[in-house]
């Protein structure tokens, strides 16, 4: 990869998802990330209870991410042809799982509001 420029990467993303969807996703990801950092800093600790709930959502995120990628690429599970395809699929699932965990944790923390440490 000689010229893997940021500009080229953006072009690839726009191609994958369509310009509107891509930038919407970027905006959503940015908002969620900022919110997550906000609640971490605000609460000064990671709540085990909220984290457990977030983990319960991980399978849903994993499945949703895989179905989404298949939908945008006109393909399905029947197209998996070799080990590298399973690795790609698991990678997509893993990213979906982590993504939703962060989202669920953040949403819980925002709804619960700032909790005193005794509430743990």
């Amino acid at each position, binding site marked *: 990869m000689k010229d893997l420029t940021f500009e080229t990467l953006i*072009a690839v993303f726009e191609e994958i998802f369509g310009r509107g969807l891509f930038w919407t996703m970027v905006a959503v990801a940015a908002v969620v990330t900022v919110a*997550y950092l906000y609640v971490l800093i605000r609460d000064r600790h990671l709540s085990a209870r909220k984290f457990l709930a977030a983990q319960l959502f991980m399978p849903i995120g994993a499945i949703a991410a895989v179905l989404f990628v298949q939908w945008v690429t006109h393909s399905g599970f029947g197209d998996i042809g070799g080990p*590298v395809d399973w690795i790609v699929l698991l990678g997509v699932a893993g990213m979906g799982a*982590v*993504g939703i965990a962060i989202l669920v944790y953040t949403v819980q923390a925002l709804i619960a509001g700032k909790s005193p440490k005794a509430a743990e």
Partner: protein
Amino acid sequence: MSDMQDFRPSRRGFLGLAGGAAALGLAAPAPARAQAIATKAKIVILGAGAAGAGMANRLVERLDGAEITLVDGRKQHWYQPGFTLIASGLKPASYSVSGTGDWLPKGVKWVEEYAANIDPEGQVITTAGGEKLPYDYLILATGLTLDWASIEGFSLDQVGQNGIGAVYAGPDYAAATWRAMDEFTSKGGVGLFGRPATEMKCAGAPLKYTFITDDYLRRKGTREASQIIYAANNATLFSVPVVNEKVKLLFGDRGFDTRWNHILTGIDAEAKTAHYKIPEQRVLNPDGTVTVTPEKTTAIAYDFTNVIPPQRAPQVVRESGLSWADKWVDQGWIEVDQGSLRHLRYPNVFGVGDINGVPKGKTAASVKWQIPVVEDHLVAEIAGREGTAVYNGYTSCPMITKIGRAMLVEFDYKNNLTPSFPGVIAPLEELWISWLMKEIALKPTYNAMLRGKA
């Protein structure tokens, strides 16, 4: 964790980009960026397609003060690797269409006319409008012409009706082909495919479209009641032996009926029949005698067919005296050295892309590898040095075998497979990841090539 969140889209994108890189051959040897060389050289590039635009973008970076002129009457730029996707109903016709001018760098002149005459002795190009363009160096990037007229009874206005398709003819014709294919696969019948006997751009495309049509028949439940016939122009399906064997296996697996040595000569749209010539066959017997089967003609009835015509150098090139005199005489590809892509009789003439008279290399991926080679030799010549870059025949073909799967086939002049990701992406395996590359990452990578990046 938040880092992971941010990383998610980029990683997926990177995979895709890496894929596109493979397909377009980004591993090409790139000359080191040096200080731009000051020159007053007049460089004319005939053709402003993928090869011409990519070449112009590289040369403006490397040369300072050169007078670079592109000659091309076509206002639209066509992303040709997208035609198969359009004809498969996955992308609209607009997917492949942009403007020629969108890709040209500042500091070059674009003459929006076709060339009418090339005089390599007098070193001058005459345009259709009569403008004379003298040059010090000429780069031929004209692409090729599709000789529709040589298919008797066929005309492009038939495309989209009566089961006639023509994927190669352009974005709108590819979309019309999809309408005909969609209608055919809903009902079933005889699907007839094949390729011309000349050299052609992306020799995998006729095979891809056969596979895709088969896939739609299966998805719609009409495959049982259908027949797929592939009329090969000679005794092979693909010029690279190892790929040929693999495709033969897949054809067997899919139940295609392959006919050998069939050269398409005509189409009877009313009768839905294709006419073929089968050239004279000579077989050497074990006792030393030769059995000769004389040339004959045959006809095959179809319900849907994808017409691909013979492909030749444009008339203006064939009349220029730059073509090979003893090879491809009916096609007129230019006489260049296979390694340097420099003309063998006129050293100030180079070729990039489909026009080159070399055994492989009529794909966008090949252009990606050819551009740096011509750039190296031309810039070295101007700087008074000797160029060293060599084109090895690299050609790449993401061979779609169904919607959702493809084989990433990459090879060189010697028919070696040249996989970009050895040990990771197997070249002769039907994989989802190879499909993702074809569908997603190829176009942005192609666009980067046009801009002289990547």
